[in-house]
């Protein structure tokens, strides 16, 4: 009772302050937010929250599985301590993110958190985690506002390894207008905040470059018949369709586009949500020629196929979408930071200062990861943020390997 009252008072005073936020000294470590002591033999707990039920199930499961692989690649340990990922279901809703984050925050042994999948969940969840002194590294929440300069204090502990929408949209628009030379484009989003935001940013950039958005459409992720929408788009005769939607919808779109004769010459650019072998199966022969925006760097082409193989042997199927790599990277960043921030005492117990860990995370620089070299800026954007356009060249799902299929076509 007194604890709660104390918490309440502290919270009322300031968003940042909670009962845990007093300088604490445990063992050899003093930290202004708090210290986590991990007794020898106990595991290091890392929280994770993602969409594991509802419409975005695939992506959320992929991401946490990617993170599991990062732990396995580290032999399952950091500093000699076993690492355990506590995955929670955050759905793709604000209240899901909030509840999952509250649950994780309730376990004082958790040192850091990865996730969530959706920006809505991050908006509600990230401040809760940071109030408990836990930094979070998102693998899917791409909304620019989350790392904007004027973000509220509660988001100080929010980092992400996935690039923010604005960069990707700008890159794609420039590529389309200048390299492909298309002057008219149509967009399709699926009603999720992620795709809508990306599409809007693309529309803005494309128009600023001098192009024209002839049609701006939306579908629902459960739609199976996209031909009416495509017919509507075809009446405007765009040279390009930009649609960062997910695997099912891209599959339907590409297969059904062939039935719309007026769209025969229209190119399609997709987002990294379909950077996977699964889109080849979903779209069948029509996948050939599909271009997508995705992470660049040679690192990615080298390491990603190995990652996909490991993923397959561990979980029985290849990743469904492209976000599993971000799951891997978020965990990698976290583990590296723990390595820096963790201190052991004579008895072999591990102490991790929360502020020290956060600082170590924010100080991440030149970290070779799956999607490129990670480096965090002062607002928590840690993504490699180097893009490329990839093009699928074969409809055989077993040939999937960045560099070969899809092939890098730009830059």
């Amino acid at each position, binding site marked *: 009772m007194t604890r709660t009252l104390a918490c309440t008072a502290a919270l009322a005073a300031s968003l940042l302050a909670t009962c845990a936020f007093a300088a604490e000294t445990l063992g050899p470590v003093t930290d202004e937010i708090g210290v986590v002591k991990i007794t020898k033999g106990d595991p290091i707990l890392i929280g994770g929250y993602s969409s594991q039920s509802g419409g975005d199930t695939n992506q959320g499961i992929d991401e946490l599985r990617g993170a599991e692989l990062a732990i396995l690649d580290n032999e399952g340990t950091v500093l000699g301590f076993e690492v355990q990922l506590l995955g929670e279901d955050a759905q793709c809703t604000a209240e899901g993110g909030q509840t999952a984050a509250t649950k994780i925050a309730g376990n004082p042994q958790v040192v850091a958190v990865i996730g969530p999948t959706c920006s809505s969940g991050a908006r509600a969840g990230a401040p809760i985690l940071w109030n408990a002194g836990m930094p979070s590294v998102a693998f899917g929440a791409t909304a620019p506002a989350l790392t904007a300069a004027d973000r509220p204090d509660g988001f100080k502990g929010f980092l992400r390894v996935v690039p923010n929408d604005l960069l990707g949209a700008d890159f794609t628009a420039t590529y389309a207008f200048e390299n492909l030379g298309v002057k008219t484009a149509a967009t399709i989003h699926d009603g999720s905040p992620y795709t809508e935001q990306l599409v809007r940013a693309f529309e803005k950039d494309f128009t600023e470059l001098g192009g024209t958005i002839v049609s701006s459409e939306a*579908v629902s992720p459960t739609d199976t018949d996209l031909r009416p*929408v495509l017919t*509507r788009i075809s009446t405007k005769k765009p040279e390009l369709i930009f649609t960062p939607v997910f695997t099912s919808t891209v599959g339907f779109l590409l297969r059904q586009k062939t039935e719309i004769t007026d769209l025969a010459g229209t190119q399609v650019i997709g987002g990294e949500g379909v950077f996977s072998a699964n889109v080849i*199966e*979903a779209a069948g022969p029509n996948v050939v020629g599909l271009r997508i925006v995705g992470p660049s760097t040679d690192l990615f082409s080298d390491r990603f196929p190995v990652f996909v193989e490991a993923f397959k042997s561990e979980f029985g199927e290849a990743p469904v979408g492209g976000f599993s790599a971000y799951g891997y990277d978020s965990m990698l960043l976290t583990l590296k930071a723990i390595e820096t921030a963790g201190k052991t005492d004579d008895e072999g117990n591990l102490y991790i200062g929360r502020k020290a860990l956060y600082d170590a995370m924010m100080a991440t620089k030149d970290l070779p990861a799956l999607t490129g070299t990670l480096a965090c800026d002062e607002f928590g954007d840690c993504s490699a943020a180097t893009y490329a356009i990839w093009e699928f060249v074969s409809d055989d799902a077993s040939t999937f390997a960045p560099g070969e299929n899809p092939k890098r076509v730009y830059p």
Partner: protein
Amino acid sequence: MTAAAISAAVRNRTADWWRRSIWVDHLMLAIRVVVAVLVLWGLAGGIAAGTYSAANFASFAMFGLTIGSVYALIALGYTMVYGILRMINFAHGDVMMVGSFAGLFAASSLSGAGLTNDAPLIALPLVLAAGMAVGAAVSVAIERVAYRPFLHVRSLAPLICAIGLSFVLQYGARGLFGTRNRAYPGFGWMEGTVQVAGLTIPIPQIVAFGAALVVLAGLLAIVRLTPLGKAMRAVSEDRDAAALVGIDVSRTIVFTFAIGGAMAGVAGVLYALVFKQITVFMGFFLGIKGFAAAILGGIGNLGGAMLGGLVLGLAEALGPALLLEGYGLPAPYQLKDVIGYGMLVLILIFRPQGLLGERLAAKRA
């Protein structure tokens, strides 16, 4: 009759209606007028906007009939079960999904032998058989778990059980078969297209439409002509009386579920044939649409289910083009469910028993 007499008669009837009606009737009339005005305005605007050519509209109609025949196939299974038990099987859409996956595995193994590409006419029936068999088995299991234990009690228990089983099937299939989207292998010449009156129509869509008609005919034949159908009709009229005259009620119900499940299997395979890729979560929303189609046509009525499916499909494909274009809304196809469900609600307001349904006695309704 002179014009004066006619106008007098109309006046009389109007006055009569006005006298007997209550405010609810007036309100309904107002809704009718408002809807009619909105629809006409949208239509006029859409035509004036001239976005689409006649060929576009013909294509829209074809798209509508295609997705409509899938809805119809699902609705037929829904309606079969409803007709006999007067209960909705919320897991029906997921039975369809399971049937579709069974078909996928059958098709994959046949494709390994090269059969799907070389002899689609042999392969397709085998794939359909796999889908039907598994669909029927799952459906019978659902009857066993969700319906049979509650036949004698008055409660919503079967509905809740069916909802529970729907979750079990979705997330169970997710665990068993994985999350990824799966594609059916190619079916040789059946992947081609034909030219009909200037329209290019993919063959699978003709197959799906034809199959829906065949299934409807088959079901009607079973219900009208066979002893089993007679038993079904008897059980649906009065379960107790049917038992009294020596009909094995529980066997009849099991057979009905089996047939309904087999229909769901057919729907699942044909869906995959037309739309090519399947996922474990596709059943729920298609099931809802099938439910809507069955209700739209008048639940318990086989012809109604067929009609309801086609009408719903057409409304979704044509609706945004015809009605919303005139209002200049952004992304009109995002609102196709508004058109589909809106039409459903309106039809129910004005014809509470659905398109072909009979007005059920209050006890039944």
